[in-house]
């Protein structure tokens, strides 16, 4: 038995392999990455159309609107996180694999963030500028979005794991994720507003960072538990 030990991939290798696989799959289906971004842009377009495009309104509502749109966009991309693996049986392989399930789930989550949160952060300046957001505030927006979307991917994975394979799972997933994501939304959006008002905003940034670290350490275990339960 001991002779076979060093042929088994290490834990990190398992995580990386899962992440790479998902990134490769996303590369082959660019729509999965791009569609949520279009959704993000469209939601940001809806608000001026609905409420009026005055400069004051835009600068005032910009942080909030952008944050809500980002949240909804991440939400859309979450429901399929485990879906294809559930359908084709890969999920069962994860469950019986010698690699720790939390790490495998984390690998998928990392890939998810790279294909949803990160593109959002990169695209956000473009939309932010249409909302007349000054450059310094845009940077704060990108910072908060980075930290926030990391937390959202981590928490969202729990929800996705709980609802995978359920009939009408998407609506249920939204119902589950939205309350969980409220602290992130509240802190993120309001931190950017504070920055826009030239007030100190570091508290919010630290809070988001702490939340992300907390989510990183705890969420994978909840996701793993949820995956086991869903797959029974």
């Amino acid at each position, binding site marked *: 038995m001991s002779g076979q030990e060093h042929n088994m991939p290490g834990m990190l290798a398992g995580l990386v392999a899962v992440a790479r696989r998902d990134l490769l799959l996303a590369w082959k289906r660019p729509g999965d990455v791009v569609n949520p971004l279009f959704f993000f842009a469209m939601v940001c377009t809806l608000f001026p159309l609905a409420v009026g495009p005055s400069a004051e309104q835009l600068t005032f509502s910009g942080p909030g609107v952008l944050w809500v749109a980002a949240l909804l966009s991440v939400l859309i991309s979450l429901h399929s996180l485990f879906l294809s693996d559930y359908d084709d049986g890969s999920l069962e392989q994860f469950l019986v694999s010698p690699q720790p399930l939390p790490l495998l789930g984390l690998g998928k989550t990392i890939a998810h963030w790279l294909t949803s949160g990160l593109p959002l952060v990169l695209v956000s300046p473009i939309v932010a500028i249409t909302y007349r957001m000054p450059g310094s505030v845009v940077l704060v927006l990108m910072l908060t979005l980075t930290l926030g979307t990391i937390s959202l991917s981590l*928490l969202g994975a*729990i929800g996705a794991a*709980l*609802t995978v394979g*359920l*009939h*009408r*799972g998407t609506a*249920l997933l939204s*119902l*589950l994720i*939205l*309350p*969980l994501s*409220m*602290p992130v939304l*509240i*802190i993120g959006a*309001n931190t950017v*507003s*504070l920055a826009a008002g030239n007030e100190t905003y570091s508290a919010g940034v630290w*809070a988001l960072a702490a*939340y992300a670290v907390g989510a990183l350490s*705890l969420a994978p275990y*909840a996701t793993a*538990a*949820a995956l086991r*339960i*869903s797959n*029974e």
Partner: protein
Amino acid sequence: MWKWFHQLASPPYFYRIVPAFSAWLMVPGLALIAYGTYAGLFLAPVDYQQGDAFRIIYVHVPSAYLSMLSYMILAVAGGIGLIWRIKLAHAVAASAAPLGASFTFLALVTGSIWGRPMWGTWWEWADPRMMSELILLFFYFGYMALRSAIDDTAKADKASAVLALVGVINVIIVHYSVTWWSSLHQGQTIMAKGGPAMDPGMLYPLLAMIFGFNLLFGSLLLRRTRTEVLFRERRTRWVREMILSPEGQS
């Protein structure tokens, strides 16, 4: 003592003892509520800031308290069921959810009714406690929705237990974030519900109401759990024997 706990977790034993136990909770509970209502409405001195409207506190605070207690019970019971695989715990969690949700709803409505004469509006977004209560209601809805979406009872139990445990941590964080957010956006000062210090004439009825409602809730929860246990155990021998035995059960 441990033996009693062990016995308690046994469904037939639990089923048998609940009616008596629940009466022990309900009777004092109703008495306390009767005193609290009477004293709160008619005996407690009028608040000089809010006038008689402050009396809504006597129903609002117990509801809010129960809404949060119920969620804690739900989460802890779910955790116990998940970790130690005690089926009764899951039955408690399943029963606590609709009760807790209705008290959350009540807290929101009574809070809104209180808000109207006080702030001039039916809903004040900037009040952190009402906002936290609203988000708590969403947590309840999510929990109940997840439960009903999963057909297999055991699976539903475990999945909702995971959700509740994640939710409990988040509820606390939500409360702090909403409080911070509210401090950023407060235009006018939100009048603190209850005023500065409470004189005993106001306080005692409130304590009586809180206690009384707690006891009442305990009675409701136990009886609802009892029904849940009966339903889950419907195909077992002890249920069959109980039903076929000389009647007198309910």
